[in-house]
């Protein structure tokens, strides 16, 4: 049996790839059937059909712009040439929620968790040190994981994942980076001065990470805005994350 639109949709959702599903929910006039479907990808390509090429083309354009803002709504489309024919098309955006993984349950992670939530990120804080990673300190995080970061991150990172490595401790930072840099994660940044970073690069190279993977690392982390306090540093990190999220490439 051929793969139906439902199976394609299910696969995209499971693999956390953004996709829009357009469905004709009401029709005035004939030629278009209630229940007809069109799957639209972010690049404007599509599968299926609503019954008319002109309708498909208009819905594709609407779906692409709705996908950009992760919006879901009904659009009323008047078919060209015939004023009487208006088709109601329900367009659903299936966009995975971006997740920010913070390695290190440190002060900056607390500020970053609060700000990231405002921007719509799911927040996950990871630290092997139980004294740092307490519910009391991180009650505002969506998830708090007490484990070694490489174990906690393994297999979890997708194209909608963002990773901020914040411990200052190579014992925790390096294993996290070894998992995050070769992963599909959209952003990987690490805290530390240029000197700290230079030493880190030497260690990671010795561990066998490729230059291509090392070039993905944002370090020192954050945009240069002269941040000093943990809250200000959180703003600079998030600004850099938003920049990566909105970058056109990929």
């Amino acid at each position, binding site marked *: 049996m051929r793969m*139906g*639109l*439902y199976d394609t*949709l*299910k696969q995209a*959702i*499971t693999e956390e790839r953004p996709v829009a599903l357009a*469905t004709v*929910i*009401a029709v005035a006039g004939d030629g278009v059937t*209630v*229940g007809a*479907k069109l799957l639209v990808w972010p690049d404007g390509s599509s599968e*299926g059909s609503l019954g008319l090429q002109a309708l498909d083309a208009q819905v594709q354009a609407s779906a692409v712009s709705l996908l950009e803002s992760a919006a*879901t*709504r*009904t659009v009323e489309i008047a078919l060209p040439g015939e004023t009487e024919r208006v088709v109601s098309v*329900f367009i*659903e955006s*299936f966009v995975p929620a971006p997740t920010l993984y913070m390695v290190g349950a440190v002060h900056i992670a607390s500020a970053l968790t609060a700000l990231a939530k405002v921007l719509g990120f799911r927040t996950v804080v990871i630290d092997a040190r139980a004294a740092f990673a307490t519910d009391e300190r991180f009650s505002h995080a969506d998830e708090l994981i007490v484990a070694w970061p490489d174990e906690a991150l393994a297999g979890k990172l997708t194209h909608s994942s963002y990773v901020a490595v914040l411990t200052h401790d190579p014992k925790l930072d390096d294993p996290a980076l070894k998992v995050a840099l070769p992963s599909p994660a959209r952003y990987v940044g690490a805290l530390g001065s240029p000197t700290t970073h230079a030493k880190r690069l030497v260690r990671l190279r010795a561990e066998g990470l490729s230059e291509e993977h090392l070039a993905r690392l944002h370090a020192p982390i954050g945009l240069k805005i002269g941040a000093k306090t943990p809250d200000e540093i959180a703003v600079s990190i998030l600004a850099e994350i938003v920049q990566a999220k909105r970058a056109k490439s990929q």
Partner: protein
Amino acid sequence: MQEVLADIERWRARGEGVAIATVVKTMGSSPRQVGAKMAVSSGGSMAGSVSGGCIEGAVFEECQDAIASGRARLLRFGVADETAWEVGLACGGEIEVFVEPLTW
């Protein structure tokens, strides 16, 4: 959608027919947002929700009809005077639900 995927998979594996109900419009207060889904199998199983429990019974029946007839329908629920206690929304809102058989 995520919350009903696993159930739908199980029902299809058992060879049952499936219908999906989706909230496509809300007016006034309503417990579930546009895009909320409920799935129903021909065997009588149910997953997800389209309201706070107010209209699930009626939607369940419409889903069974959709599986049997193979046809999709747009339904509107609201507080409609005397029928309010039957399939109305206690919250005073109004919602539109699209019910379709999973044949795509």
